């Protein structure tokens, strides 16, 4: 597992190439990229600042990977999450998974981002023309994580 928390942007093509390099078992790569929208809850978003809890972040993501590996046969798993100040259209997060077949790859990729959104200690603060506000957690994210059920 590779987990990176960084301010810098990432290159999807380069990251996927590195994840599957030299591994001829791989028959499927699934990747998810989350990006900053310019509108949230009917307000214009000028910038978005992301913070995290160093130490716990890495542990939470490693635990999520372990749960994914217990459910599906996976080869490579990569999570990159950016922190700091971002702008609309910027990339925020990358989840990439390699497996033998698409079923495992699609499912594990979606599972990891669903769990990340409810368990990994990141927080978003939006700057809008009316001032800054912390983003509220969504119940739809809780529901997305819960639909995977108990282990």
């Amino acid at each position: 597992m590779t987990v990176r928390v960084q301010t810098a942007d990432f290159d999807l093509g380069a990251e996927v190439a590195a994840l599957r390099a030299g591994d001829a078992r791989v028959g499927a790569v699934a990747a998810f990229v989350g990006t900053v929208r310019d509108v949230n809850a009917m307000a214009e978003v000028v910038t978005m600042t992301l913070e995290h809890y160093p130490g716990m972040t890495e542990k939470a993501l490693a635990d999520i990977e372990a749960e994914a590996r217990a459910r599906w046969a996976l080869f490579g798993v990569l999570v990159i999450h950016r922190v700091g100040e971002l702008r609309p259209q910027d990339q925020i997060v990358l989840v990439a998974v390699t497996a033998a077949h698409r079923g495992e790859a699609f499912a594990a990729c979606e599972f990891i981002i669903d769990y990340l959104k409810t368990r990994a200690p990141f927080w978003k603060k939006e700057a809008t023309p009316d001032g800054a506000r912390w983003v509220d957690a969504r119940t739809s994210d809780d529901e997305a994580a819960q639909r995977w059920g108990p282990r």
Partner: protein
Amino acid sequence: MNADPIAIRLVYLARLREAFGIASERVELSPGVASVGELRALLARRGGAWAAELAPGRAVRIAVNHELADDGAALRAGDEVALFPPVTGG
């Protein structure tokens, strides 16, 4: 009963850090404060933003040594206890 006070490190993140105006502190727990739930109640008794943010019913997540904990979790000397709002990453 252990007579020595339990000293822990408290960490506040995101909205709670801004509301409390402090990122971390070291506290010695009062007698009778030995669990996560008791710690939350103790901090709420500071009043002001503490009482408002930590009032019963407010969504607050608490992690002990980087692991999410429920109100019944026990506290031990040297623990790092973090308080934060529900997460919003991804």
